[in-house]
């Protein structure tokens, strides 16, 4: 889910502004010509086709949005959603008074920053490097390999990391046979943020290059030729042509990353929470789950979830404003 959500905006931007201005214009002229009834008679099969998806989205995406009223209830599972007592903002007062919540919030922000700094440049660099490989056979082989971990589940990835870096894993076996001190990376809270970042890099960085490769491919090769004729070497060409050519994609993904700053990867933390302890691994999502479902304080959990949703929305809005400020389209154009 989180993996997709990182990329989700790509499609939106592309799909949305791509067809918005022309269709908006066309629509204005067409709607005048064709009355609603005619269009309904013409388009009802199309509308009918969209209904199943719409129903599912309403049931499982929109109902939960209204379900956030639980955040204002003393939710009782026996009484259910409708009969539970309304307690106003009490849940939020409890939430903001809970040091664990602020700790989870802080963890989320720190992890997000670490991931931004350490993860984000990897696919960009990898794409540039891979693009310089001339043989298309070697290139597609490497692509096939590095895309693969994207399709592994988080449980699987973490088990693989356990076997490599964990207490009984390969790393410690090597350390011990050489007489060095063992280091169980998987349970070390101090380095946990780097561990999860390296897991994210291992799983997603390869897949991440797909967009950047496309951006590089769309750069006019004549630019390189001209630059080379002017004496620009490989590095200068990368710096002055390749990177600027990738700029709008990079900005777009940065905007999305910032908008998703509070989504640092739920399952990843949930799975490793027992091993490393809640001190290092509690993020907003796990807080919401543990205090809500596991500890049976649904109101508090829902309040934490609502807090996160609203802050995320604000972050997305802010990040997009920043992108506009730098002259990029960002997630949507200024029309929305």
């Amino acid at each position: 889910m989180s993996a997709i959500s990182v990329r989700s905006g790509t499609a939106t931007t592309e799909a949305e502004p791509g067809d918005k201005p022309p269709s908006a214009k066309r629509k204005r002229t067409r709607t005048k010509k064709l009355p609603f009834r005619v269009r309904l008679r013409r388009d009802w099969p199309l509308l009918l086709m969209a209904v199943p998806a719409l129903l599912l989205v309403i049931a499982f995406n929109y109902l939960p949005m209204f379900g956030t009223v639980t955040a204002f209830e003393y939710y009782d599972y026996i009484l259910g959603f409708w009969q539970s007592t309304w307690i106003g903002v009490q849940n939020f007062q409890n939430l903001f008074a809970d040091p664990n919540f602020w700790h989870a919030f802080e963890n989320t922000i720190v992890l997000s920053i670490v991931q931004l700094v350490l993860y984000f440049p990897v696919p960009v660099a990898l794409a540039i490097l891979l693009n310089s490989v001339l043989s298309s056979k070697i290139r597609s082989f490497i692509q096939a390999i590095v895309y693969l971990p994207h399709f592994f589940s988080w449980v699987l990835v973490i088990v693989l990391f356990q076997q490599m870096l964990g207490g009984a894993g390969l790393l410690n076996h090597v350390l011990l046979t050489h007489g060095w001190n063992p280091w169980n990376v998987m349970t070390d809270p101090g380095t946990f943020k780097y561990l999860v970042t390296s897991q994210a890099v291992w799983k997603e960085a390869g897949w991440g290059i797909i967009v950047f490769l496309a951006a590089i491919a769309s750069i006019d090769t004549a630019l390189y030729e001209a630059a080379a004729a002017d004496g620009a070497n490989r590095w200068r060409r990368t710096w002055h042509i390749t990177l600027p050519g990738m700029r709008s994609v990079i900005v777009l993904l940065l905007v999305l990353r910032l908008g998703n700053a509070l989504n640092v990867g739920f399952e990843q933390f949930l799975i490793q929470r027992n091993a490393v302890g809640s001190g290092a691994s509690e993020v907003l999502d796990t807080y919401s789950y543990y205090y809500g479902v596991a500890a049976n304080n649904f109101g508090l959990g829902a309040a934490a979830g609502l807090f996160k949703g609203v802050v995320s929305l604000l972050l997305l809005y802010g990040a997009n404003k920043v992108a506009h400020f730098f002259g990029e389209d960002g997630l949507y154009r200024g029309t929305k």
Partner: protein
Amino acid sequence: MSTALSFKAKPRKTVPKRPVWEEKPTAAGQAAKSVTLGVVVLLVIIPVYAVVLTSLSPQSSVNIAGGIVLVPHGLTLNAYREMLDGGVITRAMVISLLITLVGTIVSMVVSVLCAYGLSRPRSLGHRWILMTLIATMFFSGGIIPSFIVVADIFHGYDQYWALVLPGAVSAFNILIIRAFYMNTASELIEAAKLDGASELRILWSIVLPTSKAVNAVMALFYAVGYWSAFFNVMLYMPADSSKWTLQYVLYTYVSQGATMPGQNAATAFAGKDQPAPLSLQMCVVVLTLIPILIIYPFVQKHFTKGMLTGAIKG
């Protein structure tokens, strides 16, 4: 991306040709590049290789290696024999496969219909429906309200549909499919309409066959989503281990290290060829890997086309 591949792939047959204006790379630069890319590839391959090998290794090799096996000393299928002889793992595997199959079909039918329904420019209300879908990508109620809706309002606790329906529709996937469908030649569609073909007929006979790449990639995305999910089991049916999916089994018995039930190796193998507990665990890991490794090569070649033609140009 497809253009990148084609323009680089075209001019040569045997040896890759460097553009004339590009300087020859230094030997050191070339070596550094090869080493970096080699390391990247090995970082992906080695863990997978080690896990597969360990699952196939007898107790003796695991003992020699002192854990995960990198050098084979004899291979055995004992771990697989034990895991697949009808215990928790076998059932979990079947459940996972069924959920993935049913889920992918449901998701694809719903998404393809919706994407096609929204793909006609200027059709009635398509922008409103599109907005409704897109909004779900930016705001969600969170875990708790979703749980309450599924468990409390729809009574989905302990029900298999709770693992399928709540995540059956991905607005992102619909948008990609739609962008792809919009590239279908409109003349073909117009012609079919003049011949009296219904919308379903057009979708089935014209649009679907011309967009195999995106359909394959999206089906893979959905399938991988269902196959990989473990949290929904934790949320909706954590109590009854006979209903668990393979990922949740992997989570419980391998990641969290709980002892596997039905590990009756002692009786079944009478101590002779008893697979190492580590091999058994790695066997579960490999079982979660196999379906992906089987399907991946077939779909992998469509990634660039399926992902990007839709997304970038749409």
